């Protein structure tokens, strides 16, 4: 723990001046009488979900100010993309939000298809919807487990990972990898569904609602869980919109904005589902929204399996992908919010520029607004509730 006198606040780089350069003299009595104290949380703190450094300015246990220091996982994916062909960039997208790799792939692949003007076969679109919704369930289950373990409910992690494992096994059989999936190719899918795919997914969907009830038995009735989440980090709808938040964090505040409805892509207009909304915009509502989203995802997958058309899974795409000169923005509703890609093509085999719009990076800026006035222990819950993945924040 680094302690600095109260007149030294973090500068714009997030560094506390005087901590290392010069000896800080502390006059007798000021350390404990000081009204504010600056401490670091992370980047190795287990509940910051990766390598996030949070600089807290505390008054006792109460957070007075907060600054996030990011960039520890920066790999320069946007720059790498300028040197790679369009097909070679797809695996890098798995490594942005590595717990929802399939959703990321859909975003990038959809962007390139929009640039090329390729129409994807309907069977491929349906299979893409099934895989993306399974990934949404997997991502929310991982979020639930880690969020609960941050707050102190350890059992839920084991149960949530048990169900996530089933999804990963389905992915392994379908795609060939569990985490960094590389699920989609430009123009469709590489593999068609395997013979038992329909049965495996249906069996899983049959047991899942009962398992969600189980989590809710462990959490909704739990008075520790309620006192740690209800009324913590209340975010009104107008502020959530002003912070340009997306995903369950925005919908937890009661804003009905989901790209699957607002700006339908892939085969989503053909399915009947609802957008769960919160009322109070606190941590508990965001938890309820995600639980309800899992239930809606089950509905979508069941409809997609029922109406799965026959046919090819790959459109006719030239082997060397050379999109026409132009630019395109394509975004989808990933488990964490709107993930978008902005591609500029100069007519060659490599993109001139690729810009990623990551949901976690933009949602993370709400942490300061949410945390001020709460206790240090609540910061842990609030980092969990906005569901960040540092691979996506730093890119």
């Amino acid at each position, binding site marked *: 723990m680094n302690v600095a006198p109260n007149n030294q606040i973090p500068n714009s780089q997030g560094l506390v001046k005087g901590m290392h350069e010069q000896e800080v003299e502390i006059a007798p009595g000021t350390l404990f009488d000081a009204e504010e104290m600056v401490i670091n949380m992370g980047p190795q703190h287990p509940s910051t979900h990766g390598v996030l450094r949070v600089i807290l300015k505390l008054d006792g246990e109460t957070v007075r100010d907060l600054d996030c220091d990011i960039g520890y996982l920066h790999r320069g994916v946007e720059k790498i993309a300028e040197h*790679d062909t369009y*097909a*070679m*960039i*797809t*695996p*890098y997208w798995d490594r942005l939000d590595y717990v929802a790799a399939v959703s990321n792939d859909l975003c990038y692949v959809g962007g390139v298809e929009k640039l090329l003007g390729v129409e994807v076969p309907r069977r491929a679109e349906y299979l893409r919807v099934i895989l993306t919704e399974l990934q949404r369930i997997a991502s929310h289950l991982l979020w639930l487990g880690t969020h609960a373990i941050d707050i102190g409910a350890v*059992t839920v992690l084991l149960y949530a990972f*048990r*169900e996530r*494992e*089933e999804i990963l*096994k389905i992915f*392994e*059989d*379908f*795609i*060939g*990898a569990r985490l*960094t999936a*590389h699920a989609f*190719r430009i123009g469709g899918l*590489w*593999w068609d569904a*395997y013979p038992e795919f329909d049965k495996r997914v249906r*069996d*899983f969907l049959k*047991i899942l609602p009962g398992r969600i009830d*189980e989590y809710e*038995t*462990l959490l909704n*009735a*739990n*008075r520790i869980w309620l006192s740690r989440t*209800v009324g913590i980090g209340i975010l009104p709808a107008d502020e959530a919109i002003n912070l340009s938040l997306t995903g369950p964090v925005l919908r937890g505040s009661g804003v*009905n904005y989901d790209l699957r*409805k607002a700006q339908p892509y892939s085969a989503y207009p053909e399915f009947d589902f*609802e*957008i*769960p*909304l*919160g*009322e*109070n915009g606190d941590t*508990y*509502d965001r938890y*309820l*929204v995600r639980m*309800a989203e899992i239930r*809606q995802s089950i509905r979508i997958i069941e409809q997609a399996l029922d109406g799965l058309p026959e046919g090819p899974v790959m459109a006719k795409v030239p082997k060397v992908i050379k999109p026409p000169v132009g630019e395109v923005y394509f975004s989808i509703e990933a488990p964490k919010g709107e993930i978008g890609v902005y591609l500029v093509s100069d007519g060659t085999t490599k993109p001139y520029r690729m810009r990623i719009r990551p949901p976690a990076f933009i949602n993370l800026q709400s942490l300061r607004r949410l945390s001020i006035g709460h206790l240090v222990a609540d910061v842990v819950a609030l980092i969990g509730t906005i569901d960040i993945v540092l691979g996506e924040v730093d890119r």
Partner: protein
Amino acid sequence: MPAVKTTIGRRTLGEVIKRLLLFDLFKGLFVTFSYNWRALYEKREGGNPNQAIYTEQYPLERPRVSERFRGAPRLNLDPETGQTLCIACDLCALACPVDCIEVGSIRREVREGEKVNKKKVLTTFVFDTSRCMFCNLCSEACPTDCLELTQSFELAVYHRSGFRWDREMLEKGIDYVRYAK
């Protein structure tokens, strides 16, 4: 379209009594102990989601690896002649996003029946598994189905030099130490 409203209910008298009798505690413990009880008599069956014991006993119990799994690379041989299928076209190296494949070839006169053709012949093939991200793009680019990512997944080695797989290793695969039950 009606949205699903999630609300927090106000506390009623029944809920206050439930709270006093620690109903929530016992409800949660019931779920946990129901699994504990089943774990005592239920046998572990790999891949059954309804089982109580879920942990895979790894070295003793081999995990089920799917057919499409992308693991250790392999250079396939022609089953009839035993010669390599690789035609040294370099497409895999061009498709690789991380440049982990090096294909070495020479132009040589090859006797095919009665004709003598000048052909590209594979000499060396180096695959750096420490840089590979197992995306399958090389295997998809291969025109002769020679390079393939197989189901073997135990790629740990003691030295960094062991990550550079040469042609012989790619054709034969690694020798694993198999632990018996």
